[in-house]
């Protein structure tokens, strides 16, 4: 029991941290792109907007899903799971939700990989340069928090109830 208590506390701490860090991750710019003297700081949402404006709606949709919707849904789902801990209701659905969160969760890495690619090719001096900004750090931190939280709150714990089992 003490092991699962520790796991529960760990998951709670990670989800709260993730929720707090989600704000700077989306408000602060993730990178600054300088192209031929034109300096442009980009937030995650700004990057999506830019893609959409240039008529690339499907790609904008993928990035929007992976980098805004997935992290938010993940945090919301994990908070709900943790709030429901110990209750005997909807256990089956909660188990399924946890499995979905665990599989879909890593797709928000798209943004971090994108940042790494742009930083790597954007080293052309004054012509084009890409500089990573603190937003990326927060974004990566949210991702790591949610990944470890869903790892820590395992499916067995959904089935631990305070009340005796009703069959």
């Amino acid at each position, binding site marked *: 029991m003490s092991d699962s208590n520790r796991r529960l506390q760990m998951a709670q701490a990670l989800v709260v941290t993730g929720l707090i860090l989600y704000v700077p991750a989306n408000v602060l710019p993730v990178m600054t*792109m300088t*192209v*031929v003297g034109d300096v442009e700081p980009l937030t995650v949402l700004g*990057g999506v907007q*830019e*893609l959409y404006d*240039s008529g*690339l709606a499907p*790609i904008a949709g*993928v*990035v929007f899903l*992976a980098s805004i919707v997935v992290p938010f849904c993940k945090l919301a789902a994990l908070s709900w799971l943790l709030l429901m801990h110990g209750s005997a209701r909807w*256990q*089956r659905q909660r*188990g*399924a939700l946890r499995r979905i969160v*665990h*599989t879909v*969760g*890593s*797709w928000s*890495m*798209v*943004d*971090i*990989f*994108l*940042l*790494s*690619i*742009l*930083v*790597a*090719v*954007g*080293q*052309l*001096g004054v*012509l*084009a340069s890409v*500089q*990573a900004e603190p937003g*990326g*750090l927060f974004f*990566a*931190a949210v*991702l*790591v928090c949610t*990944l470890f939280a869903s790892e820590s709150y395992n*499916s067995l714990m*959904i*089935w631990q109830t305070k009340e005796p089992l009703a069959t």
Partner: protein
Amino acid sequence: MPPKSALVCQRCGVVVRRQTGERSLQPSWALATTGLFLIVLANVNPILTFDVAGNTQSNLIISGVLDLFGQGYWPVAALVFFAGIAGPALHLASVWYVAAACCLSLRWPGLHRAAKLAEVMESWNLVPVYAVATVVAVVKLDMLGTVAWQTGAFWVLALSLCSLLAVQSFDRGLVEKRLEELT
């Protein structure tokens, strides 16, 4: 158990055991071997080149890691390194180890630990995500200059397909059953 049946938990709906029949781990072994070669190819060939006014720059997976590190964002660099290079390598290596031992009926040490590692690393093999990120990067850069795909992109694509298939074929129930038979 009758063929093509599965044992499902009545309470939570998780598949406890699937009738595996005569399926072996040979596909996993083959895919993991291919994947390990592809990791090398995907990491030494440039993925894309970006050209602005005659100045060209190409990139490898590792160059993103190094540049992020150079700009002082070492946690992000470490995450990219782990999810893009180390994670896939560990995942495929552990799948290879377990599948090879099962196919050759050899009792290599630490098989259960390797199977556990393969399971954990499965969610850290993010090469398919990297492939999607490459497509997005090309679309973004196309607005700013000239982008061209290089051979590395092909290897990254092949590696992500290989990883996805390896995850599919390395069925947990099957692995447990084969390991039980072996030890």
